[in-house]
């Protein structure tokens, strides 16, 4: 680009330096977090190839001894050892949180797109879509989960093919609940984005002989879905946090595990700070990821171009 040949101003160089320090820290923290998670998961799947299943990746005693020897950090040594001690449980819970969120989000997307299309371009189906969306957005998510789990007792109807996948069938109930609920929210975001695609392009699509559905598929959706990414990212972030409601129908995800440990050890503050940081790391990962996706699929010449 043109900027490659233009020397940077002093101000730009300072800003660049600041940005790269910040970015470096963030990348390091992210690598540490995901490294810990993935190694913990793999260790468990492979039956404890690195450390016995249930044991922290590094011995808590060693962490405590190291920190105790460092001036200034000694005061935190026992807290750190405690966190290391419970890290295998957190990693296990985080796995379910990640899986539930990711699967629900993807399944919800495939329901949300037809819902949004029906809402914008349908006649009768537009009312159906509206009804669905309002019902699911207008009632508490927790109540929806309770209806599925306690009311309809769906956990006992999980088909055989699915029932071995997770240790407990209730995970599927949670996924169903978040899928149905998330679809309604995703549909709202996507609807807004579809409506922002210029009418004239639809006319042009029809004018070359594309049917209405073909025009939606080849012209409207490729643009609308791109435009939906920023607001859709909100739903992603919400879902990461709302997935903690699964704890109330006994899904042993991150929040459930944290709550369990806290009620056994009474170290509520420390445990929920660590849990909060874990959710934050997931949320930051999601938003960074989506920002990248947005940049990667951006239409050249439209809106802000990607930096770098």
């Amino acid at each position, binding site marked *: 680009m043109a900027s490659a040949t233009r020397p940077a101003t002093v101000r730009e160089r300072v800003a660049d330096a600041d940005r790269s320090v910040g970015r470096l820290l963030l990348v390091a923290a992210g690598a540490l977090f995901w490294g810990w998670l993935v190694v913990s998961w793999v260790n468990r799947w492979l039956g404890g190839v690195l450390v016995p299943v249930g044991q922290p990746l590094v011995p808590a005693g060693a962490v405590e001894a190291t920190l105790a020897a460092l001036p200034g950090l000694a005061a935190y040594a026992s807290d750190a050892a405690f966190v290391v001690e419970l890290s295998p449980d957190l990693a296990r819970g985080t796995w379910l949180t990640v899986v539930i969120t990711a699967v629900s989000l993807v399944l919800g997307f495939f329901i949300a797109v037809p819902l949004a299309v029906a809402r914008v371009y349908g006649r009768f189906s537009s009312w159906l879509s509206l009804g669905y969306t309002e019902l699911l957005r207008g009632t508490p998510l927790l109540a929806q989960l309770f209806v599925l789990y306690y009311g309809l007792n769906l956990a006992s109807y999980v088909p055989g093919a699915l029932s071995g996948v997770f240790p407990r069938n209730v995970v599927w109930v949670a996924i169903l609940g978040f899928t149905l609920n998330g679809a309604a929210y995703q549909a709202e975001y996507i609807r807004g984005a579809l409506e922002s695609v210029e009418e*004239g392009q639809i006319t*042009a699509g*029809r*004018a070359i*002989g*594309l049917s209405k559905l073909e025009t939606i598929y*080849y012209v409207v959706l490729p*643009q609308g879905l791109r435009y939906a990414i920023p607001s859709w990212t909100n739903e992603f972030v919400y879902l990461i946090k709302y997935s903690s409601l699964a704890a109330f129908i006994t899904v042993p995800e991150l929040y459930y595990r944290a709550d369990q440990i806290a009620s056994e050890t009474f170290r509520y503050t420390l445990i929920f700070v660590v849990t909060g940081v874990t959710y934050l790391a997931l949320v930051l990962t999601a938003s960074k990821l989506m920002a990248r996706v947005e940049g990667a699929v951006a*239409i050249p*010449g439209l809106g802000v171009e990607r930096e770098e």
Partner: protein
Amino acid sequence: MSDGDFLGVTDVSKWYGDDQVLHDVSFEMDRGDVTVLIGPSGSGKSTMLRCVNRLAEAQEGSIRLDGEEVLSPDIDVDDLRREVGMVFQGFNLFAHLTARGNVALGPRRVLGLSESESRERAAAQLDRVGLADQMDSYPAELSGGQQQRVGIARALAMEPKLMLFDEPTSALDPELIGEVLEVMHGLVDEGMTMLVVTHEMSFAREVADEIVFLDEGHVVERGPPEQLFERPEKERTGRFLERIESHD
């Protein structure tokens, strides 16, 4: 004069709600004719054009295109549209596709050409409108004049037997109008049948076989350019032309 062998518009009337926007509009075209529709804003020019490819539905009258009744409930509207190209005032390019992608979409998805055939056809059409070097640019990276030429190439790629132009240069900066008109002149020379709404009177004067003057949905007057421009029969035509020409 045309005998309407190719396109025969007869007593077409169209209402939006209770508003009648076209009143018994009639005109004819032969193959290879260029007819220019002129008239003040809101007179129904765009609506008339859209009735021809059924983007708008006329309630009364007849439009015969190449022996077929366009307004018949039995015709396949998508088939009709693949034979009638349309160029829009606002270009209406598909924003997420390159110039080539815009032109190739119809051949690929409507005509069912293969990926490589449709890309080749797109390249040929873009070359025809002088954009061989901009094939991989996205609409937002092109000037208005270039965008409109892509719009023309997109319509041409369907190999239409009739081209509709709805004020193709009205949204363009004055210095970009020429390149679009040049492409249109080229089409005239190739013998394309064209129904054009425009305020470019010099273009109309040069290439039109017939000018149709619409006002408030009525055909006030029609005839060859030399007659309409030099010796308009109706006073309203004269007044309109004076107003337009003084703008040029």
